[in-house]
């Protein structure tokens, strides 16, 4: 179906780093047929400057010039303020009513309402003859209340099936593979429960600091930036029941059930089972880096957390009694995202347990996307000693073809109207319902802001979360 993609905030970082390279890849691979892209932003650019900037972004992403001119000829630019009706009138004139229309909001969140309102007023939302969709980047609100308001606001102009709330983690190959692994293989599902799993650990660690996102991060902090969306989505995929089918709603129904089964944390639990911290100066990759409060754009008295760790329980038959420990942080010792499922030890220890013994299944999301299963094996020799060994699967070498970038998959799904990898309204609202009390308690200092040295694995207080049930975090 012919379509027009309108990128709001087309002069921004997200468009340049992610969207244009993703669109270009899809184009070169023949995934796009009859299409146009319109950049819509405030900067004083014209078609030529827009195309030139796209070209630069493709250079930065390492693309050669194959098909570049033909690609750029489909791109044009409209300069407008986001609340200026004239800009939207101009947009309406430039697109055909017969083409599907995809609005991609790649702006800062404070512009979402303005854009959606103007789209509605200009007849560029649901009152078109061809399908119209809107893609909304995270964060979807700053709390549950804001998310509900934004949902209602958009819902007045777009049908729920036309709203694509993006969480780019869901576009990653390994994340999609969690469902395939769990429900496409018969050997793991029988042990995927509290009878056999001791605890689940989710880590999303970054080596970088706030970079150019200080203004956003100061308001958001790690809890809103990572936990409410990416990490809870990962948790839902690990914990959800088998869906009745692979339709978007069947999968999202199951994820919502997981969010609703998250046990709310009261003040005592928040003080005991959550840790928030901010990085101090340290050494990362051999270079001295400043403390968070000394980063450009950060207030010297900032209390924004750059690290968050939680111990969570799910009140469901499958997961009763199984702790889920999650952590995320900036300026940690390495960049790493993974889910580790720790299985229980055999009922009787017949063999002396050696180095890091125990069965573990690790979904590596980045880097080195893949899977590792840890098994105890006898050390060769005359003694009956065992140690942990691994069985590895690497996406990078396992199939001989590179995994698509998350944005390629997500963009294509939005273009063809498949919302499976996007989050539904009730998913967003129920995840906020879990996060809001924690955020509020943290703002009231129920759990004090700790500090950690940049380049290490986080604050020492976080050790307590797994230690409360006799375990440790996996090494970073």
């Amino acid at each position, binding site marked *: 179906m012919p379509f027009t993609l309108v990128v709001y905030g087309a002069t921004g970082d997200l468009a340049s780093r992610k969207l244009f390279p993703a669109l270009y890849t899809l184009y070169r691979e023949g995934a796009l047929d009859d299409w146009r892209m319109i950049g819509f932003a405030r900067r004083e650019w014209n078609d030529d400057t827009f195309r030139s900037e796209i070209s630069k972004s493709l250079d930065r992403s390492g693309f050669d010039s194959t098909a570049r001119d033909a690609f750029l000829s489909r791109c044009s630019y409209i300069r407008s303020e986001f609340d200026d009706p004239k800009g939207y009138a101009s947009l309406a004139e430039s697109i055909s009513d017969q083409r599907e229309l995809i609005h991609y909001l790649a702006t800062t969140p404070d512009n979402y309402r303005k854009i959606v309102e103007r789209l509605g007023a200009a007849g560029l939302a649901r009152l078109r003859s061809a399908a119209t969709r809107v893609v909304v980047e995270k964060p979807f609100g700053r709390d549950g209340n804001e998310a509900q308001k934004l949902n209602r606001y958009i819902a007045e102009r777009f049908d729920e099936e036309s709203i694509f709330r993006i969480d780019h983690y869901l576009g990653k190959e390994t994340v999609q593979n969690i469902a395939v692994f769990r429900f496409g293989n018969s050997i793991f599902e029988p042990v995927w429960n509290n009878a056999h799993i001791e605890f689940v650990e989710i880590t999303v660690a970054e080596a970088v600091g706030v970079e150019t996102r200080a203004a956003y991060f100061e308001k958001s902090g790690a809890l809103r930036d990572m936990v409410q969306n990416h990490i809870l989505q990962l948790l839902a995929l690990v914990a959800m029941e088998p869906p009745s089918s692979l339709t978007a709603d069947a999968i999202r129904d199951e994820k919502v059930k997981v969010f609703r089964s998250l046990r709310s944390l009261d003040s005592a639990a928040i003080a005991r089972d959550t840790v928030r911290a901010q990085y101090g100066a*340290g*050494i*990362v*990759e*051999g*270079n001295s880096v400043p403390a968070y409060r000394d980063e450009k754009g950060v207030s010297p008295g900032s209390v924004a957390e750059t690290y968050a760790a939680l111990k969570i329980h799910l009140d469901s038959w499958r997961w009763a009694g199984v702790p889920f420990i999650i952590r995320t942080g900036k300026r940690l*010792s*390495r960049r790493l995202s993974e889910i580790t499922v720790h299985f229980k030890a055999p009922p009787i220890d017949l063999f002396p347990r*050696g*180095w890091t013994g125990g069965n573990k299944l690790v979904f590596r999301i980045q880097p080195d996307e893949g899977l*590792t299963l840890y098994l105890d094996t006898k*050390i060769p*020799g005359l003694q009956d*000693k065992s*140690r942990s060994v*691994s069985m590895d699967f690497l996406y990078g070498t396992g199939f001989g073809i590179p995994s698509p970038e998350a944005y390629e998959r997500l963009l294509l799904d939005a273009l063809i109207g498949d919302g499976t990898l996007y989050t539904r309204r009730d998913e967003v609202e129920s995840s906020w319902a879990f996060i809001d009390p924690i955020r509020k308690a943290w703002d009231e200092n129920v759990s004090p802001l700790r500090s950690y*040295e940049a*380049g*290490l*694995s986080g604050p*020492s207080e976080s050790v307590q979360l797994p230690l409360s049930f006799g375990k440790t975090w996996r*090494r*970073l």
Partner: protein
Amino acid sequence: MNIPKSSILERELVSRIRDSAREGESATARAMAATVIVASDSIRAASADATIDRLMGRRPARVLHVRSGSEGPSRAWTSARCALDRASRGVCFEDIFIESPDEEALDPRIWGPFLIRELPAILFWNFGPGALTECGCGPFCAERVDLVVADGSLDFNFIQGGGDAPVRNFIDAILQTIADAPAYSDLAWERLENLRLAVARLFDGSERRGDLAKIVSISVSLRDSWSEMLVEGWLRSRLSAIGMSEKVEISLVQGDAGLVFVLEGGRRYSVGFPTGSVALLSYSDTEVLELGFRETDDGLILANLLDDPAADPMYRQAISAIRR
């Protein structure tokens, strides 16, 4: 300290190990068993590296050579090498060298990013036991290092000759390190495994076991003083377990005659090691038992520690029992 980014050095290593593996026959590039951190200074670097080199061909490992006291400026570089094992399979070392004129290269924040996350990490420490916490390795090592390995015999050489106080301090420092480190292993102790097996065998069997209660004195005569003290401590801890610690006199005698047990009535049992893999258990001039052991060297000891990076609890008991 400004060293190249770990990602740059890692990329460099990938190509180096690939090249080295190509030179060796059927080497398994990048299949590593552990990370070994060799912490030393310009004086001790050669002997430390020589010890670790004995691991070559036994286990594939990433070896981080972190050195203080270099003559030039701080720098880091990589290399890779492969050797054939007994089955003619290539076994590779990935080497990363980090050195600085001051002590910065020893800072775990500098070398920490090069640890292979999923594998055991073994710190081969060449500065004596007291300095481990001084370099800031305490909390970091507790979290990221599985085993701290030292060579007590070498370390002991640096404190000998100053009377009893330095020896007491040395032993106290080891006990403190055992308490602080994730696990601690002394190569000098590991080298004594065959000796300990031989002594156990000397009193094996119901008839000989009865002779344990008749021991009056023991003389220990080994190649180095630290090993002698370890054996003394070990004997005391074992005798203590059967309530004989106070009754038996233990003396350390220069030489390498082995162990001589004097029993009531003047009978003498002895253990001698004419070679590293043969022990002679002597009950009288005519009754001599020859025992064969697996040849032990530092390479084999290190390989075993890589496979099972755990401390031997008996070492702590032995250290604690040394008379000071």
